[in-house]
């Protein structure tokens, strides 16, 4: 059964006002295309979960889609801050933003517990840190098998998780390579899953390399084919991280008016991702292609009849 849908259809059907939404992908494979469509559809009161809110949540917060962030590192990697988020946190401008804060492994543990239907996940972190005071959902627990204490984090079960990947088949069987972040955990933890891919492939392509499958179609609700959907983040082997944009965002986001002007031009001002990519221009996109090839070689699984 084909689950292929347009981004507009997938977001309209699976993201609702008030939902807990996780657009995962650690630096790599961040689905900006989905975030922008959520902004265009003017979803409201979302709780946005992500280890690193990154520029995508700064944009979604600036656009007024979110009332709360669940996260572990709130910055523009290698560059600086996320100023739309900071304005709301530091000055309640234009409205307060609720924060629920963990460490990276705490967030990964939360998705893992959510995916496994466990009541908590134990980790060796948070000792003598102020984080458990800032977030009372991080709690010490005694081992049932000895004297040791570890910290527990609660399960995180997003209403919808959105992941970007290199390829999937029409049923949603999804393969990715390069940094894997915690997309698998976030997808299995979610009620609904949208997979966005650079390329739609035949089922045989997936079955020829089953070790590379990260998310089975079993848990996928929609497959969106959206080349360049992760820009300005990147897709290993397809296009590079657009570091220039990450640097530019520092200037754009420092001021509320320039942030809104950027949203007007690059999100509300385009109908969809294809128009955004056109607007970026062939020169910019050509510059982001890998400088060379680095194929993995292949392995022989053998046949057994």
């Amino acid at each position, binding site marked *: 059964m084909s689950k292929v849908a347009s981004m507009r259809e997938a977001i309209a059907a699976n993201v609702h006002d008030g939902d807990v939404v996780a657009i995962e992908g650690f630096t790599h494979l961040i689905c900006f295309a989905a975030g922008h469509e959520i902004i265009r559809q003017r979803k409201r009161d979302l709780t946005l979960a992500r280890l690193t809110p990154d520029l995508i949540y700064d944009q979604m917060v600036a656009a007024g889609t979110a009332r709360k962030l669940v996260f*572990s590192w709130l910055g523009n990697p290698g560059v600086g801050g996320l100023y739309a988020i900071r304005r709301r946190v*530091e000055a309640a401008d234009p409205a307060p933003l609720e924060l629920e804060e963990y*460490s990276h492994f705490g967030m990964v543990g939360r998705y893992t517990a959510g995916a496994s239907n466990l009541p908590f996940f134990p980790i060796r972190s948070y000792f003598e840190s102020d984080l458990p005071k800032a977030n009372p959902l991080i709690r010490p627990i005694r081992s049932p098998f000895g004297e040791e204490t570890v910290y527990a984090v609660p399960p995180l079960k997003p209403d919808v998780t959105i992941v970007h990947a290199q390829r999937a088949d029409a049923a949603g069987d999804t393969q990715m390579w390069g940094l894997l972040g915690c997309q698998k955990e976030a997808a299995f933890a979610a009620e609904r899953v949208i997979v966005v891919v650079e390329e739609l492939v035949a089922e045989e392509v997936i079955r020829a390399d089953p070790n590379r499958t990260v998310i089975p179609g079993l848990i996928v609700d929609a497959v969106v084919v959206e080349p360049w959907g992760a820009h300005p983040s990147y897709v290993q082997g397809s296009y590079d991280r657009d570091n220039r944009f990450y640097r530019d965002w520092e200037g754009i986001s420092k001021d509320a008016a320039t942030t809104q002007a950027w949203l007007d031009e690059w999100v509300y001002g385009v109908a969809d991702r294809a128009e955004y990519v056109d607007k970026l221009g062939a020169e910019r996109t050509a510059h982001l292609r890998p400088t060379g090839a680095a194929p993995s070689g292949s392995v022989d699984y053998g046949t057994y009849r």
Partner: protein
Amino acid sequence: MNEPRQGPAAEPQPFTRSEMMIVAAARELAGQRVCFVGVGLPNIAVNLARLTVAPDLELVYESGAFGSRPERLPLSIGDPSIVTGATAIVPMFELFSFYLEGGLVDVGFLGAAQIDRFGNINSTVIGEYEHPKTRLPGSGGACEIAINARQVFVIMRQSRRSFVDRIDFRTSPGNLGGAETAARIRREQGWLGSGPSVVVTDLGIYHFDDAGEMRLDSIHPGATLEQIRETMGWDPRLAEPLAATPAPTETELRLIREELDPEGAYTK
């Protein structure tokens, strides 16, 4: 007490303070095997170490890369260049559970917005948590790295705002209120790490003394003790004798300028 040796004051140096800081941090990695790399200055320092004093150093990035050999300086710790040619790419779950909690990481590199004399680190907020004056990025992986890496290296510029008597929020524990308490709590709670061991700044190199407090062991060329005292919120303990950090070598400078940071993004 003899006045400690110090570099010639105010004499222009043929290298920047950031370059000196990177070189000093890289040299501290001699003999280490597995290092958890952070973004920015640590990234350059660790890659410099791999090309100089620590050829067997395995670079671990929290994004899930082990044994990276980046061919360019990554802007972020999730760059595609840390993937191509790496030994292993693993889900973050494995990286934090099997590699870090499993005790395989020798050195964790951390940055900080604020640090105190015992190496406790704040990277969360300036001001009150609920009503911060400045909202900083937060822990990321720092809290679990501080607890589980065998030792912690800190690299940061020093100033009255960053080297403070009291940090506003303890994101990542260092030597808590002193070495004795820290040792007892680490033992009781079964931490894998022994906490901070080196702090490299733009002015000098600190290690931690028996009391668990930062001690200035070496002063960089061009820096003065006066500058050091002016840029920290407490009176620092000083090693006797105080060493002078050897200036960067031509090889170290060439690697930084030509290979690791040709655009000077971090080293100007």
